[in-house]
Protein backbone atom coordinates (compact mmCIF):
# COMPACT_ATOMS: atom_id res chain seq x y z
CA UNK A 1 0.00 0.00 0.00
CA UNK A 2 2.64 2.60 0.92
CA UNK A 3 4.42 1.71 -2.31
CA UNK A 4 1.23 2.26 -4.28
CA UNK A 5 0.67 5.58 -2.58
CA UNK A 6 4.21 6.66 -3.35
CA UNK A 7 3.74 5.62 -6.95
CA UNK A 8 0.55 7.63 -7.06
CA UNK A 9 2.39 10.58 -5.46
CA UNK A 10 5.06 10.38 -8.12
CA UNK A 11 2.48 10.36 -10.85
CA UNK A 12 0.75 13.33 -9.25
CA UNK A 13 4.00 15.25 -9.28
CA UNK A 14 4.39 14.39 -12.96
CA UNK A 15 0.85 15.56 -13.72
CA UNK A 16 1.49 18.79 -11.84
CA UNK A 17 4.57 19.43 -13.93
CA UNK A 18 2.70 18.63 -17.14
CA UNK A 19 -0.06 21.09 -16.19
CA UNK A 20 2.38 23.89 -15.45
CA UNK A 21 5.04 23.25 -18.09
CA UNK A 22 3.38 24.73 -21.20
CA UNK A 23 2.57 28.02 -19.49
CA UNK A 24 5.96 28.15 -17.80
CA UNK A 25 7.74 27.49 -21.08
CA UNK A 26 5.64 30.13 -22.84
CA UNK A 27 6.38 32.76 -20.18
CA UNK A 28 10.10 32.03 -20.40
CA UNK A 29 10.17 32.17 -24.21
CA UNK A 30 7.89 35.16 -24.77
CA UNK A 31 8.62 37.33 -21.73
CA UNK A 32 11.89 36.13 -20.20
CA UNK A 33 13.80 35.71 -23.43
CA UNK A 34 12.81 39.13 -24.88
CA UNK A 35 13.91 40.94 -21.72
CA UNK A 36 17.30 39.19 -21.72
CA UNK A 37 17.65 39.55 -25.49
CA UNK A 38 16.97 43.30 -25.22
CA UNK A 39 19.75 43.71 -22.69
CA UNK A 40 22.15 41.82 -24.99
CA UNK A 41 21.02 43.67 -28.13
CA UNK A 42 21.48 47.01 -26.42
CA UNK A 43 25.19 46.19 -26.09
CA UNK A 44 25.63 45.03 -29.69
CA UNK A 45 25.83 46.75 -33.06
CA UNK A 46 22.58 45.11 -34.09
CA UNK A 47 21.50 46.46 -37.50
CA UNK A 48 20.04 45.21 -40.76
CA UNK A 49 23.45 43.88 -41.63
CA UNK A 50 23.19 41.50 -38.69
CA UNK A 51 20.33 39.72 -40.42
CA UNK A 52 22.51 38.98 -43.45
CA UNK A 53 25.87 38.29 -41.85
CA UNK A 54 24.69 36.99 -38.51
CA UNK A 55 27.27 39.20 -36.86
CA UNK A 56 26.47 41.67 -34.12
CA UNK A 57 29.74 42.91 -32.63
CA UNK A 58 29.85 43.90 -28.98
CA UNK A 59 29.97 47.64 -28.53
CA UNK A 60 29.62 47.95 -24.77
CA UNK A 61 27.55 50.94 -23.79
CA UNK A 62 27.90 52.76 -27.13
CA UNK A 63 24.18 52.35 -27.92
CA UNK A 64 23.27 53.94 -24.61
CA UNK A 65 25.65 56.80 -25.38
CA UNK A 66 23.96 57.21 -28.76
CA UNK A 67 20.51 57.14 -27.17
CA UNK A 68 21.31 59.51 -24.31
CA UNK A 69 23.36 61.79 -26.57
CA UNK A 70 20.73 62.12 -29.31
CA UNK A 71 18.96 65.47 -29.63
CA UNK A 72 15.65 63.63 -29.25
CA UNK A 73 16.44 62.08 -25.87
CA UNK A 74 15.61 65.02 -23.59
CA UNK A 75 12.42 65.92 -25.49
CA UNK A 76 11.35 62.26 -25.46
CA UNK A 77 11.87 62.05 -21.69
CA UNK A 78 9.93 65.26 -21.14
CA UNK A 79 7.14 64.17 -23.49
CA UNK A 80 6.94 60.77 -21.78
CA UNK A 81 6.54 62.50 -18.42
CA UNK A 82 3.99 65.05 -19.64
CA UNK A 83 2.07 62.43 -21.62
CA UNK A 84 1.93 60.00 -18.70
CA UNK A 85 1.12 62.52 -15.99
CA UNK A 86 -1.42 64.41 -18.09
CA UNK A 87 -3.21 61.24 -19.17
CA UNK A 88 -3.29 59.74 -15.69
CA UNK A 89 -4.49 62.90 -13.94
CA UNK A 90 -7.26 63.39 -16.51
CA UNK A 91 -8.39 59.75 -16.51
CA UNK A 92 -8.36 59.52 -12.77
CA UNK A 93 -10.20 62.78 -12.04
CA UNK A 94 -12.96 62.10 -14.58
CA UNK A 95 -13.02 58.42 -13.68
CA UNK A 96 -13.48 59.15 -9.98
CA UNK A 97 -16.20 61.70 -10.69
CA UNK A 98 -18.10 59.23 -12.87
CA UNK A 99 -17.58 56.35 -10.44
CA UNK A 100 -18.99 58.46 -7.58
CA UNK A 101 -21.89 59.44 -9.76
CA UNK A 102 -22.69 55.84 -10.67
CA UNK A 103 -22.52 54.81 -7.04
CA UNK A 104 -25.93 56.36 -6.48
CA UNK A 105 -28.08 53.62 -7.87
CA UNK A 106 -30.57 54.94 -10.36
CA UNK A 107 -32.66 53.39 -13.14
CA UNK A 108 -30.38 52.10 -15.95
CA UNK A 109 -27.20 52.84 -13.96
CA UNK A 110 -25.80 49.32 -14.44
CA UNK A 111 -26.53 49.35 -18.16
CA UNK A 112 -25.04 52.83 -18.68
CA UNK A 113 -21.96 51.86 -16.70
CA UNK A 114 -21.26 48.82 -18.83
CA UNK A 115 -21.84 50.74 -22.07
CA UNK A 116 -19.19 53.14 -20.82
CA UNK A 117 -16.67 50.31 -21.30
CA UNK A 118 -16.95 50.53 -25.09
CA UNK A 119 -14.11 53.04 -25.72
CA UNK A 120 -11.81 50.74 -23.75
CA UNK A 121 -12.75 47.63 -25.74
CA UNK A 122 -12.22 49.12 -29.19
CA UNK A 123 -8.89 48.48 -30.88
CA UNK A 124 -6.70 51.49 -30.08
CA UNK A 125 -5.91 51.99 -33.74
CA UNK A 126 -9.66 52.30 -34.45
CA UNK A 127 -9.94 54.99 -31.78
CA UNK A 128 -6.91 56.76 -33.23
CA UNK A 129 -8.41 56.75 -36.72
CA UNK A 130 -11.73 58.06 -35.41
CA UNK A 131 -10.10 60.83 -33.40
CA UNK A 132 -7.94 61.78 -36.33
CA UNK A 133 -11.08 62.51 -38.28
CA UNK A 134 -12.62 64.40 -35.35
CA UNK A 135 -9.48 66.47 -34.74
CA UNK A 136 -8.87 67.29 -38.40
CA UNK A 137 -8.02 70.97 -38.65
CA UNK A 138 -10.16 71.94 -41.62
CA UNK A 139 -13.07 69.54 -41.67
CA UNK A 140 -13.02 67.90 -38.21
CA UNK A 141 -16.16 68.09 -36.12
CA UNK A 142 -14.38 69.34 -32.97
CA UNK A 143 -13.22 72.58 -34.58
CA UNK A 144 -16.62 73.04 -36.20
CA UNK A 145 -18.27 72.59 -32.80
CA UNK A 146 -15.91 74.94 -30.94
CA UNK A 147 -16.32 77.58 -33.63
CA UNK A 148 -20.09 77.40 -33.55
CA UNK A 149 -19.94 78.05 -29.80
CA UNK A 150 -17.60 80.98 -30.39
CA UNK A 151 -14.87 79.45 -28.17
CA UNK A 152 -12.32 79.67 -30.97
CA UNK A 153 -12.16 81.96 -33.97
CA UNK A 154 -9.56 80.12 -36.05
CA UNK A 155 -9.51 76.33 -36.45
CA UNK A 156 -7.03 74.70 -34.05
CA UNK A 157 -4.37 72.57 -35.84
CA UNK A 158 -4.77 69.82 -33.21
CA UNK A 159 -2.47 67.24 -34.77
CA UNK A 160 -0.36 69.37 -37.07
CA UNK A 161 0.98 72.04 -34.73
CA UNK A 162 3.88 71.08 -32.42
CA UNK A 163 2.44 73.25 -29.65
CA UNK A 164 -0.89 71.42 -29.27
CA UNK A 165 -0.23 67.92 -30.66
CA UNK A 166 0.85 66.47 -27.32
CA UNK A 167 -2.24 67.92 -25.67
CA UNK A 168 -4.43 66.33 -28.35
CA UNK A 169 -2.74 62.96 -27.84
CA UNK A 170 -3.26 63.27 -24.07
CA UNK A 171 -6.95 64.08 -24.57
CA UNK A 172 -7.47 60.94 -26.66
CA UNK A 173 -5.57 58.82 -24.12
CA UNK A 174 -7.77 60.20 -21.36
CA UNK A 175 -10.84 59.23 -23.36
CA UNK A 176 -9.51 55.69 -23.81
CA UNK A 177 -8.56 55.35 -20.12
CA UNK A 178 -11.72 56.66 -18.44
CA UNK A 179 -13.63 53.33 -18.57
CA UNK A 180 -10.80 51.44 -16.83
CA UNK A 181 -10.64 54.05 -14.06
CA UNK A 182 -14.41 54.13 -13.61
CA UNK A 183 -14.62 50.34 -13.39
CA UNK A 184 -11.89 49.90 -10.78
CA UNK A 185 -12.83 52.94 -8.71
CA UNK A 186 -16.50 51.97 -8.80
CA UNK A 187 -15.55 48.55 -7.45
CA UNK A 188 -13.56 50.27 -4.68
CA UNK A 189 -16.45 52.55 -3.79
CA UNK A 190 -18.78 49.56 -3.53
CA UNK A 191 -16.52 48.09 -0.85
CA UNK A 192 -17.03 51.06 1.49
CA UNK A 193 -19.80 50.08 3.93
CA UNK A 194 -22.94 52.18 3.72
CA UNK A 195 -22.99 52.31 7.56
CA UNK A 196 -19.96 54.63 7.53
CA UNK A 197 -21.90 57.19 5.56
CA UNK A 198 -24.97 56.80 7.74
CA UNK A 199 -22.86 57.31 10.85
CA UNK A 200 -21.09 60.24 9.21
CA UNK A 201 -24.38 61.85 8.28
CA UNK A 202 -25.37 61.83 11.95
CA UNK A 203 -22.20 63.79 12.72
CA UNK A 204 -22.95 66.22 9.92
CA UNK A 205 -20.55 64.79 7.37
CA UNK A 206 -22.36 64.97 4.05
CA UNK A 207 -21.40 65.97 0.52
CA UNK A 208 -17.76 67.07 0.24
CA UNK A 209 -17.13 66.49 3.93
CA UNK A 210 -18.24 62.89 3.58
CA UNK A 211 -16.01 62.52 0.54
CA UNK A 212 -12.86 63.80 2.30
CA UNK A 213 -13.41 62.08 5.63
CA UNK A 214 -15.04 58.81 4.59
CA UNK A 215 -14.68 58.08 0.86
CA UNK A 216 -11.08 59.19 0.26
CA UNK A 217 -9.38 57.46 3.22
CA UNK A 218 -11.25 54.22 2.53
CA UNK A 219 -10.56 54.35 -1.19
CA UNK A 220 -6.83 55.04 -0.83
CA UNK A 221 -5.58 51.46 -1.49
CA UNK A 222 -7.66 51.17 -4.66
CA UNK A 223 -6.53 54.65 -5.74
CA UNK A 224 -2.87 53.67 -5.41
CA UNK A 225 -3.39 50.55 -7.49
CA UNK A 226 -5.28 52.45 -10.21
CA UNK A 227 -2.65 55.17 -10.41
CA UNK A 228 0.38 52.87 -10.46
CA UNK A 229 -1.16 50.47 -12.98
CA UNK A 230 -2.24 53.48 -15.05
CA UNK A 231 1.33 54.77 -15.13
CA UNK A 232 2.76 51.39 -16.13
CA UNK A 233 0.19 50.98 -18.90
CA UNK A 234 0.49 54.57 -20.16
CA UNK A 235 4.30 54.55 -20.29
CA UNK A 236 4.21 51.85 -22.95
CA UNK A 237 1.43 53.34 -25.11
CA UNK A 238 2.37 53.21 -28.79
CA UNK A 239 -0.77 52.58 -30.83
CA UNK A 240 -2.45 55.89 -29.98
CA UNK A 241 0.59 58.04 -30.73
CA UNK A 242 1.55 56.19 -33.92
CA UNK A 243 -2.04 56.34 -35.15
CA UNK A 244 -2.57 60.02 -34.36
CA UNK A 245 0.76 61.70 -35.07
CA UNK A 246 3.47 59.09 -35.70
CA UNK A 247 5.62 60.95 -33.19
CA UNK A 248 5.33 64.22 -35.12
CA UNK A 249 4.75 67.03 -35.93
CA UNK A 250 8.39 68.10 -35.59
CA UNK A 251 8.89 65.31 -32.99
CA UNK A 252 6.41 66.98 -30.63
CA UNK A 253 4.90 63.65 -29.55
CA UNK A 254 8.05 61.52 -29.35
CA UNK A 255 8.06 59.37 -26.22
CA UNK A 256 10.52 56.68 -25.12
CA UNK A 257 8.26 53.97 -26.53
CA UNK A 258 7.98 55.76 -29.89
CA UNK A 259 11.74 56.31 -29.94
CA UNK A 260 12.38 52.63 -29.31
CA UNK A 261 9.99 51.61 -32.08
CA UNK A 262 11.41 54.07 -34.60
CA UNK A 263 15.05 53.27 -33.91
CA UNK A 264 14.39 49.54 -34.30
CA UNK A 265 11.77 49.34 -37.01
CA UNK A 266 12.17 52.58 -38.99
CA UNK A 267 15.94 53.19 -38.77
CA UNK A 268 16.75 49.47 -38.25
CA UNK A 269 19.15 50.34 -35.44
CA UNK A 270 18.00 47.51 -33.19
CA UNK A 271 20.80 48.10 -30.70
CA UNK A 272 19.81 51.71 -30.12
CA UNK A 273 16.13 50.77 -30.08
CA UNK A 274 16.86 48.16 -27.42
CA UNK A 275 18.76 50.77 -25.37
CA UNK A 276 15.69 53.03 -25.44
CA UNK A 277 13.38 50.19 -24.48
CA UNK A 278 15.64 49.21 -21.58
CA UNK A 279 15.42 52.76 -20.26
CA UNK A 280 11.65 52.41 -20.56
CA UNK A 281 11.77 49.09 -18.68
CA UNK A 282 13.81 50.64 -15.88
CA UNK A 283 11.23 53.37 -15.39
CA UNK A 284 8.37 50.84 -15.51
CA UNK A 285 10.23 48.67 -13.04
CA UNK A 286 10.20 51.41 -10.42
CA UNK A 287 6.44 51.62 -10.68
CA UNK A 288 6.08 47.84 -10.91
CA UNK A 289 7.87 47.50 -7.56
CA UNK A 290 5.54 50.09 -6.04
CA UNK A 291 2.58 48.21 -7.45
CA UNK A 292 3.75 44.84 -6.15
CA UNK A 293 4.29 46.26 -2.67
CA UNK A 294 0.78 47.66 -2.69
CA UNK A 295 -0.63 44.44 -4.08
CA UNK A 296 1.39 41.94 -2.09
CA UNK A 297 -1.44 41.12 0.25
CA UNK A 298 -3.79 40.44 -2.65
CA UNK A 299 -1.27 38.00 -4.15
CA UNK A 300 -0.60 36.17 -0.92
CA UNK A 301 -4.26 35.45 -0.40
Amino acid sequence: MPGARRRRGGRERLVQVLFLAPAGLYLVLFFGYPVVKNVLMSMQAYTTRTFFTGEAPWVGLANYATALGSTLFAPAMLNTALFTIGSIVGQFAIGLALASFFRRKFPLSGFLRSMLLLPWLLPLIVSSATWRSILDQDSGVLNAFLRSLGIIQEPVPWLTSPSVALLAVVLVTIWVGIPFNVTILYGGLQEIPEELYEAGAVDGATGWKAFWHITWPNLRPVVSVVLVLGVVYTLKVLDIILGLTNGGPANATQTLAVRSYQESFVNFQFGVGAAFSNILILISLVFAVIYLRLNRRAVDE
Partner: protein
Amino acid sequence: MTATPTTAPARLRPSVTARSRRADRPKLGHTAVGILFLAVMLFPIYWMINASLQPSGNTLTADFLPLKPDFGGYQKAIEQQGTNLVTSLVISLGTVVFSLAVAAPAAYMLGQIRSSWINVGLLAILISQMIPGIVIANALYAAYNDLGLLNSIPGLILADATHAIPFVILIVRAFMMKIPPSIVEAARVDGAGIARAFVSIVLPISRNSLITAGLFAFLFSWSDFLFALTLTTTEDVRPVTLGIYTYLGTQVSNWSAVMATAVLSSIPAIVLLVLAQKYIAAGATGGAVK
Protein backbone atom coordinates in the same frame (compact mmCIF):
# COMPACT_ATOMS: atom_id res chain seq x y z
CA MET B 1 -19.77 36.28 -11.02
CA THR B 2 -18.18 38.02 -8.14
CA ALA B 3 -17.55 41.17 -10.07
CA THR B 4 -21.15 42.36 -9.99
CA PRO B 5 -21.30 43.84 -6.52
CA THR B 6 -24.87 45.09 -7.01
CA THR B 7 -26.09 41.90 -5.42
CA ALA B 8 -24.50 42.68 -2.05
CA PRO B 9 -27.50 42.43 0.27
CA ALA B 10 -26.31 45.12 2.69
CA ARG B 11 -26.74 47.77 0.07
CA LEU B 12 -30.25 46.79 -0.84
CA ARG B 13 -31.40 47.26 2.71
CA PRO B 14 -33.73 50.25 2.61
CA SER B 15 -32.45 52.91 4.98
CA VAL B 16 -34.90 55.50 6.19
CA THR B 17 -38.14 55.20 4.25
CA ALA B 18 -38.74 58.94 4.03
CA ARG B 19 -35.30 59.45 2.55
CA SER B 20 -35.71 56.83 -0.10
CA ARG B 21 -39.13 58.16 -1.11
CA ARG B 22 -37.73 61.64 -1.43
CA ALA B 23 -34.92 60.19 -3.50
CA ASP B 24 -37.21 58.67 -6.12
CA ARG B 25 -37.67 61.67 -8.35
CA PRO B 26 -34.07 62.96 -8.39
CA LYS B 27 -33.07 59.44 -9.40
CA LEU B 28 -34.70 59.88 -12.80
CA GLY B 29 -32.73 63.11 -13.02
CA HIS B 30 -29.64 61.01 -12.39
CA THR B 31 -30.58 58.74 -15.24
CA ALA B 32 -30.86 61.76 -17.52
CA VAL B 33 -27.45 63.06 -16.45
CA GLY B 34 -26.01 59.55 -16.83
CA ILE B 35 -27.34 59.30 -20.38
CA LEU B 36 -25.80 62.69 -21.11
CA PHE B 37 -22.38 61.55 -19.82
CA LEU B 38 -22.62 58.40 -21.89
CA ALA B 39 -23.63 60.38 -24.97
CA VAL B 40 -20.53 62.58 -24.63
CA MET B 41 -18.26 59.58 -24.04
CA LEU B 42 -19.68 57.60 -26.93
CA PHE B 43 -19.95 60.53 -29.34
CA PRO B 44 -16.69 59.60 -31.14
CA ILE B 45 -18.09 56.13 -31.79
CA TYR B 46 -21.30 57.64 -33.16
CA TRP B 47 -19.19 59.94 -35.30
CA MET B 48 -17.19 57.02 -36.64
CA ILE B 49 -20.41 55.31 -37.76
CA ASN B 50 -21.80 58.57 -39.15
CA ALA B 51 -18.63 59.34 -41.12
CA SER B 52 -18.57 55.80 -42.51
CA LEU B 53 -21.95 56.40 -44.14
CA GLN B 54 -21.00 59.62 -45.91
CA PRO B 55 -20.22 59.75 -49.63
CA SER B 56 -16.55 58.97 -50.29
CA GLY B 57 -14.02 61.72 -50.68
CA ASN B 58 -11.03 63.19 -48.96
CA THR B 59 -12.95 65.74 -46.93
CA LEU B 60 -14.91 65.14 -43.78
CA THR B 61 -17.76 67.57 -44.24
CA ALA B 62 -20.32 65.29 -42.69
CA ASP B 63 -23.85 66.05 -41.60
CA PHE B 64 -24.81 65.24 -38.06
CA LEU B 65 -27.18 62.52 -39.22
CA PRO B 66 -26.49 60.15 -42.09
CA LEU B 67 -29.87 60.94 -43.67
CA LYS B 68 -28.77 59.75 -47.08
CA PRO B 69 -26.52 56.85 -46.09
CA ASP B 70 -23.95 55.98 -48.71
CA PHE B 71 -22.51 52.49 -48.51
CA GLY B 72 -19.67 53.20 -50.92
CA GLY B 73 -17.24 53.32 -48.00
CA TYR B 74 -18.22 49.82 -46.91
CA GLN B 75 -17.91 48.53 -50.44
CA LYS B 76 -14.37 49.92 -50.63
CA ALA B 77 -13.57 48.66 -47.13
CA ILE B 78 -14.63 45.10 -47.91
CA GLU B 79 -12.89 45.19 -51.27
CA GLN B 80 -9.60 46.41 -49.82
CA GLN B 81 -9.71 45.11 -46.24
CA GLY B 82 -11.89 42.01 -46.51
CA THR B 83 -8.92 39.65 -46.59
CA ASN B 84 -7.32 41.51 -43.68
CA LEU B 85 -10.51 41.15 -41.63
CA VAL B 86 -10.46 37.40 -42.25
CA THR B 87 -6.76 37.30 -41.31
CA SER B 88 -7.55 39.10 -38.04
CA LEU B 89 -10.40 36.69 -37.35
CA VAL B 90 -8.24 33.61 -37.91
CA ILE B 91 -5.43 35.00 -35.75
CA SER B 92 -7.83 35.98 -32.96
CA LEU B 93 -9.55 32.60 -32.87
CA GLY B 94 -6.14 30.93 -32.88
CA THR B 95 -5.05 33.08 -29.96
CA VAL B 96 -8.17 32.10 -27.99
CA VAL B 97 -7.60 28.39 -28.49
CA PHE B 98 -3.86 28.56 -27.82
CA SER B 99 -4.17 30.82 -24.77
CA LEU B 100 -6.88 28.75 -23.12
CA ALA B 101 -5.05 25.48 -23.82
CA VAL B 102 -1.82 26.77 -22.30
CA ALA B 103 -3.26 28.84 -19.48
CA ALA B 104 -6.21 26.83 -18.10
CA PRO B 105 -4.22 23.81 -16.77
CA ALA B 106 -1.63 26.15 -15.26
CA ALA B 107 -4.37 28.29 -13.72
CA TYR B 108 -5.82 25.20 -12.02
CA MET B 109 -2.48 23.93 -10.67
CA LEU B 110 -1.47 27.38 -9.47
CA GLY B 111 -4.61 27.35 -7.36
CA GLN B 112 -4.02 23.84 -5.96
CA ILE B 113 -0.38 23.63 -5.00
CA ARG B 114 0.67 25.19 -1.71
CA SER B 115 4.27 26.27 -2.13
CA SER B 116 6.27 29.44 -1.96
CA TRP B 117 7.27 28.80 -5.58
CA ILE B 118 3.69 29.47 -6.56
CA ASN B 119 3.97 33.03 -5.28
CA VAL B 120 7.14 33.48 -7.31
CA GLY B 121 5.24 32.24 -10.36
CA LEU B 122 2.32 34.59 -9.74
CA LEU B 123 4.71 37.47 -9.25
CA ALA B 124 6.36 36.66 -12.58
CA ILE B 125 2.95 36.64 -14.25
CA LEU B 126 2.05 40.02 -12.76
CA ILE B 127 5.35 41.52 -13.89
CA SER B 128 5.07 39.99 -17.36
CA GLN B 129 1.91 42.07 -17.92
CA MET B 130 3.94 45.22 -17.36
CA ILE B 131 6.67 44.52 -19.91
CA PRO B 132 6.29 47.00 -22.78
CA GLY B 133 5.22 45.33 -26.01
CA ILE B 134 8.03 47.02 -27.93
CA VAL B 135 10.56 45.06 -25.85
CA ILE B 136 8.92 41.81 -26.89
CA ALA B 137 8.65 42.95 -30.52
CA ASN B 138 12.33 43.93 -30.65
CA ALA B 139 13.47 40.49 -29.57
CA LEU B 140 10.83 38.50 -31.46
CA TYR B 141 11.69 40.20 -34.75
CA ALA B 142 15.23 38.86 -34.61
CA ALA B 143 14.12 35.42 -33.42
CA TYR B 144 11.25 35.16 -35.95
CA ASN B 145 13.61 36.23 -38.71
CA ASP B 146 15.83 33.24 -37.93
CA LEU B 147 12.93 30.83 -37.47
CA GLY B 148 11.00 31.96 -40.55
CA LEU B 149 8.01 33.04 -38.47
CA LEU B 150 7.81 36.60 -39.81
CA ASN B 151 4.70 37.17 -41.97
CA SER B 152 3.02 34.04 -40.66
CA ILE B 153 -0.24 33.42 -38.88
CA PRO B 154 1.28 31.05 -36.27
CA GLY B 155 3.92 33.69 -35.54
CA LEU B 156 1.29 36.33 -34.87
CA ILE B 157 -0.84 33.94 -32.80
CA LEU B 158 2.14 33.15 -30.57
CA ALA B 159 3.01 36.84 -30.21
CA ASP B 160 -0.59 37.99 -29.63
CA ALA B 161 -0.92 35.39 -26.88
CA THR B 162 1.44 37.59 -24.82
CA HIS B 163 -1.52 39.97 -24.46
CA ALA B 164 -3.76 37.14 -23.28
CA ILE B 165 -1.96 34.36 -21.39
CA PRO B 166 -1.02 36.21 -18.16
CA PHE B 167 -4.53 37.66 -17.97
CA VAL B 168 -6.19 34.29 -18.60
CA ILE B 169 -4.06 32.54 -15.97
CA LEU B 170 -4.89 35.11 -13.28
CA ILE B 171 -8.61 35.37 -13.95
CA VAL B 172 -9.22 31.63 -14.38
CA ARG B 173 -7.10 30.78 -11.34
CA ALA B 174 -9.12 33.17 -9.18
CA PHE B 175 -12.27 31.36 -10.26
CA MET B 176 -10.97 27.79 -10.02
CA MET B 177 -9.73 28.40 -6.47
CA LYS B 178 -13.35 28.86 -5.43
CA ILE B 179 -14.38 25.37 -6.58
CA PRO B 180 -15.01 23.36 -3.40
CA PRO B 181 -12.24 20.72 -3.14
CA SER B 182 -14.81 18.14 -2.07
CA ILE B 183 -16.28 18.01 -5.59
CA VAL B 184 -12.93 17.17 -7.14
CA GLU B 185 -12.02 14.78 -4.31
CA ALA B 186 -15.24 12.84 -4.81
CA ALA B 187 -14.17 12.10 -8.35
CA ARG B 188 -10.65 11.22 -7.20
CA VAL B 189 -12.03 8.65 -4.75
CA ASP B 190 -13.82 7.05 -7.68
CA GLY B 191 -10.42 6.49 -9.21
CA ALA B 192 -10.08 9.43 -11.58
CA GLY B 193 -6.60 10.95 -11.89
CA ILE B 194 -5.99 14.69 -11.67
CA ALA B 195 -6.10 15.03 -15.43
CA ARG B 196 -9.44 13.18 -15.70
CA ALA B 197 -10.94 15.19 -12.84
CA PHE B 198 -9.69 18.40 -14.46
CA VAL B 199 -11.27 17.66 -17.83
CA SER B 200 -14.55 16.17 -16.62
CA ILE B 201 -15.19 18.28 -13.51
CA VAL B 202 -13.07 21.41 -13.18
CA LEU B 203 -13.39 22.64 -16.77
CA PRO B 204 -17.20 22.29 -17.02
CA ILE B 205 -17.68 24.05 -13.66
CA SER B 206 -15.37 26.85 -14.77
CA ARG B 207 -17.30 27.44 -17.96
CA ASN B 208 -18.13 31.07 -17.15
CA SER B 209 -14.60 32.07 -16.33
CA LEU B 210 -13.30 30.31 -19.44
CA ILE B 211 -15.83 32.17 -21.58
CA THR B 212 -14.83 35.48 -19.98
CA ALA B 213 -11.14 34.77 -20.47
CA GLY B 214 -11.72 33.58 -24.03
CA LEU B 215 -13.69 36.70 -24.97
CA PHE B 216 -10.91 38.91 -23.68
CA ALA B 217 -8.23 36.85 -25.38
CA PHE B 218 -10.16 37.39 -28.60
CA LEU B 219 -10.46 41.15 -28.08
CA PHE B 220 -6.78 41.52 -27.10
CA SER B 221 -5.65 39.68 -30.20
CA TRP B 222 -8.14 41.40 -32.49
CA SER B 223 -6.94 44.81 -31.22
CA ASP B 224 -3.26 44.00 -31.53
CA PHE B 225 -1.42 46.54 -33.60
CA LEU B 226 2.16 46.43 -32.38
CA PHE B 227 2.95 42.87 -33.44
CA ALA B 228 1.05 43.29 -36.71
CA LEU B 229 3.23 46.32 -37.37
CA THR B 230 6.57 44.86 -36.38
CA LEU B 231 6.33 41.15 -37.20
CA THR B 232 5.04 41.49 -40.76
CA THR B 233 7.04 42.94 -43.60
CA THR B 234 4.89 42.07 -46.61
CA GLU B 235 1.19 42.20 -47.41
CA ASP B 236 0.79 38.42 -47.27
CA VAL B 237 -0.47 38.32 -43.71
CA ARG B 238 -1.92 41.67 -42.69
CA PRO B 239 -4.30 42.07 -39.74
CA VAL B 240 -6.95 44.76 -40.21
CA THR B 241 -5.41 47.03 -37.54
CA LEU B 242 -2.36 47.38 -39.75
CA GLY B 243 -4.69 47.90 -42.71
CA ILE B 244 -6.20 50.91 -40.93
CA TYR B 245 -2.75 52.26 -40.06
CA THR B 246 -1.59 52.13 -43.67
CA TYR B 247 -4.82 53.90 -44.67
CA LEU B 248 -3.96 56.70 -42.26
CA GLY B 249 -0.59 57.46 -43.88
CA THR B 250 0.21 61.14 -43.99
CA GLN B 251 -2.79 62.18 -46.04
CA VAL B 252 -6.07 60.36 -45.84
CA SER B 253 -7.53 60.09 -49.31
CA ASN B 254 -10.82 58.36 -48.59
CA TRP B 255 -12.28 58.95 -45.15
CA SER B 256 -15.47 56.97 -45.63
CA ALA B 257 -13.49 53.82 -46.44
CA VAL B 258 -11.26 54.36 -43.38
CA MET B 259 -14.24 54.90 -41.12
CA ALA B 260 -16.12 51.95 -42.62
CA THR B 261 -13.10 49.74 -41.88
CA ALA B 262 -12.99 51.19 -38.37
CA VAL B 263 -16.66 50.32 -37.87
CA LEU B 264 -16.14 46.77 -39.18
CA SER B 265 -13.16 46.38 -36.81
CA SER B 266 -15.31 47.56 -33.90
CA ILE B 267 -17.99 44.92 -34.44
CA PRO B 268 -16.43 42.28 -32.14
CA ALA B 269 -16.18 44.75 -29.24
CA ILE B 270 -19.71 46.04 -29.74
CA VAL B 271 -21.26 42.58 -30.20
CA LEU B 272 -19.46 41.20 -27.15
CA LEU B 273 -20.45 44.15 -25.00
CA VAL B 274 -24.11 43.82 -25.96
CA LEU B 275 -24.43 40.02 -25.95
CA ALA B 276 -21.94 39.09 -23.25
CA GLN B 277 -22.26 42.11 -20.98
CA LYS B 278 -21.90 40.20 -17.72
CA TYR B 279 -18.78 38.40 -18.89
CA ILE B 280 -17.15 41.61 -20.08
CA ALA B 281 -17.95 43.43 -16.85
CA ALA B 282 -16.54 40.49 -14.87
CA GLY B 283 -13.34 40.43 -16.88
CA ALA B 284 -12.86 44.18 -16.72
CA THR B 285 -12.80 44.19 -12.93
CA GLY B 286 -11.23 40.79 -12.31
CA GLY B 287 -8.36 41.14 -14.69
CA ALA B 288 -7.30 44.63 -13.76
CA VAL B 289 -7.08 44.37 -10.01
CA LYS B 290 -5.78 40.85 -9.56
